[in-house]
């Protein structure tokens, strides 16, 4: 299914390759790993680049060109910045130029229709939408390439001379599609030299399997509950309880889906010898909205802090400037997630709560008992997911109206959904806390040495079953 964080627009017959798919797991991945480890070390970046281009072009080969263009732009600008480092003004111009070009690419392919539709509301202006399919991962790779040029300028890393290695950095298939957003300086050293050990590979394999299970077994399952409640809303049968149950389902789906993808990315990176930064740190255990955002989509908030907030002045220029800077960051954060007003609203929803916490509520919150702080945080966060989940603001409004008392309280269907999904929800809730990891670490090492591979194999088997059934498509000859 197409999912917001991946920003796919799938046209008929054009399907990008997903990690959680049979051709990837039993085709692309084993073949790529085999070739990668079979060739001498100095060719591995090339293998990575070529296989990643194949991965990227799968289903949408035309957009390899856009990827290629982005690589060329920042490769040359990185070299130019380094060459003219002594002439600061010129170097800064090249950084700015790289940003303008990257943002134009992003803006054109992702946001053209949004601007066209909204500007056309002004009388006298009429711009037509282009309906361009979104190049996969463009929100991620443009941010990555921008971070490269800026990091080179700031001398956080030397410019990459080899276009193959630079290309490998940009296109690396583990994080190309859904992050984490890897800043160049984080992998600059590993691009040149990396160590590969069995224990690193094993850790990566386990991490990958955990991510796959989170996505395929948990996220996809609970997603069906959200779909059912949304359908109930359009059929007019949604209840207050059902409305909130649906939002809870969505909140779990997006966390397990997205963090699952990040786990798979980090795991595959480990298998290849890279160390990507963590992207999630048990966000639903946060005791404040501020803390939540230190635990959710860490690579994105880090990017915005490093490359937007701090250059704007951060918190160093007085309260008014600080609030303005935070506003800009949260507007952009929301907007980055999608070319639609509900995403902007979602970003601003957090802007409001973060400001309240920063300037008004901090002491008050610290006096509250922990359970109340957790409850408050989850309420704000999940209400946010409700806005995030529905791009059509009319539908969103109607849904929330039902949630806040516009419908009946409870119906028999709610009881059915609770029995069908109750255990899954309990597993999701427990899985959102540290309990599983803590429980695992308390086991004696010998037990973990045996149980680890066993559980991993069980996880792979069950995930395969779910994926095969996903394509299970009996021809219902009695209904066509």
């Amino acid at each position, binding site marked *: 299914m197409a999912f917001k964080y991946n920003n796919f627009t799938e*046209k008929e*017959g*054009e*399907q990008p*390759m997903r990690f959680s*798919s*049979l*051709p990837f*797991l*039993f085709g692309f*991945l*084993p073949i790529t790993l085999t070739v990668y480890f079979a060739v001498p070390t100095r060719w591995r970046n090339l293998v990575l680049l070529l296989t990643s281009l194949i991965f990227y072009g*799968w*289903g949408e*080969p*035309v957009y390899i060109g856009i990827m290629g263009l982005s690589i060329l732009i920042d490769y040359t600008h990185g070299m130019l910045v380094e060459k003219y480092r002594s002439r600061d003004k010129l170097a800064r111009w090249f950084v700015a130029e790289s940003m303008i070009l990257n943002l134009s690419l992003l803006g054109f392919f992702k946001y053209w229709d949004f601007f066209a539709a909204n500007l056309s509301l002004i009388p006298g202006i009429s711009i037509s939408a282009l309906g361009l399919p979104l190049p996969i991962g463009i929100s991620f790779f443009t941010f990555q390439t921008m971070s490269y040029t800026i990091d080179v300028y700031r001398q956080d890393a030397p410019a990459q001379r080899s276009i193959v290695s630079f290309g490998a950095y940009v296109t690396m298939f583990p994080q190309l599609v859904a992050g984490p957003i890897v800043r160049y300086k984080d992998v600059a050293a590993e691009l040149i030299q990396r160590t590969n*050990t*069995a*224990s*690193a*590979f*094993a850790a990566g*394999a*386990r991490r990958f*399997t955990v991510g796959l299970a989170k996505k395929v077994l948990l996220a996809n399952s609970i997603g069906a509950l959200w779909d059912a409640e949304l359908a109930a809303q359009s*059929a007019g*049968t949604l209840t207050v309880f059902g409305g909130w149950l649906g939002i809870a389902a969505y909140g779990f789906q997006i966390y397990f889906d997205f963090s699952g993808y990040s786990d798979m990315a980090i795991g595959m990176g480990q298998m290849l010898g890279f160390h990507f930064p963590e992207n999630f740190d048990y966000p639903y255990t946060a005791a404040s909205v501020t803390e939540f955002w230190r635990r959710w989509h860490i690579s994105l908030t880090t990017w915005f802090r490093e490359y937007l907030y701090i250059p704007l002045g951060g918190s160093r220029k007085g309260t008014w400037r600080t609030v303005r800077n935070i506003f800009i960051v949260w507007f952009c954060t929301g907007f980055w997630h999608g070319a639609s007003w509900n995403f902007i609203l979602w970003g601003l929803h957090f802007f409001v709560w973060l400001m309240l916490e920063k300037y008004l509520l901090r002491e008050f919150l610290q006096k509250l008992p922990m359970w109340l702080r957790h409850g408050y945080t989850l309420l704000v966060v999940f209400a946010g997911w409700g806005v995030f989940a529905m791009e059509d603001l009319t539908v969103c409004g109607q849904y929330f109206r039902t949630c806040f008392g516009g419908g009946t309280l409870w*119906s028999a*269907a709610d*009881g*059915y959904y609770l*029995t*069908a*999904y*109750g*255990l*899954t929800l309990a597993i999701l809730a427990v899985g959102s806390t540290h309990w599983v990891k803590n429980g695992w670490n308390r086991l004696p090492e010998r037990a*973990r*040495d045996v149980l*680890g*591979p066993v559980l*991993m194999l069980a996880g*792979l*088997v*069950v995930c*395969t*079953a779910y994926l*095969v*059934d*996903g*394509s*299970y*498509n*009996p*021809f*219902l*000859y*009695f*209904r*066509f």
Partner: protein
Amino acid sequence: MAKNGRLTTAVFCLFLAGLLIWHAALPDRARSETENRTLAQFPQFSWENLKDGSFTAGMEDYFADQFPLRDDWTGLKARCEQLLGKRSFHDVYLCGNTLISRVEEPDDAQVKKNLSYVNEFAGMADGQVLLGLIPSAAEVWKDRLPAGAPSFDQPAFLEKAAEETGLPAVDLLGALAAHAGEPIYYRTDHHWTSLGAFYGANALLNALGKEPLKEDDFTPQIASTDFNGTLYSTSGVHWLTPDTIEYWVPEDGLRVTTWKSGKAEPGQLYDRSYLEHKDKYSSFLGGNQPLCVIQNPEITDGSKLLLIRDSYSDSLAPFLARRFSEVHLIDLRYYHASPAEYMAEQGIDTVVVLYSVANFISDRNLVYLGR
């Protein structure tokens, strides 16, 4: 720790590589009996196909369809989901030892159109026209569904249909509901059993003013005890006891003519060759065909009946042949000429539009009624 690393690495690599090799080595299947469809084959390669994405989409389908042990993996998934408390599998509810298909809310526009086609037909046809809508297990056995499970309101639809067409309705809901405690639907298939068809036949005969059939007059023959039907396939639930198919009406004396191949040929009341395959229900009259006629020479009053129908009538028609000298069956999926004209040509003065509710609300072929 290093030892642990090697074991995990080996397990991971062997699992992925093993299935890849097995997949590549396994000869491609052309068709899946369980899923009742043809399976994707290796796509044709060309630069155009690659550019527009159809080659890679074809690869994905091929990869999934030809996966080794495909049917067993789906059974495993259903088991896991059942353990988690799930009760609905691909829109089929698991109710103890029975699978009940959920009837989805239909597209209102299509329903309106279908009812209007029935009205048009009633206007054109020269004779008595009845509308028979067969409720499914989701309605008659709704007490077996999981509490609160959503499903389409069939009685409300039956009332609406009676109102909008003004045709005399056949009370199939009443007839089946009266015997809800008996095995009137299959447990792994969406059709009614021969017992259910028997009660349905009597409801129809009642509405037509004919003498009902008596259960004692029949000695059901067991045709198969190993029937796994459509719901077995759709849901992926493969662990239920298979169904038993019974043949009630004896074949001797009845003459069947089928137009399956496009021209009139002698047919069989029960095509036992289907019993060798998964789709055993098709043994009734030999399955899908545009037109079929059952003649009963023992009935000499010249009574003729036309059924415009779906697959439920395959097990129903043998019963009706006991009261009519000729029973004609038209399936609008394959028969696209005018049913009204057919009636006039054949001198048939009684016609029943007989569909299951689930098919009627979604069928796109009822437009041919109005021809």
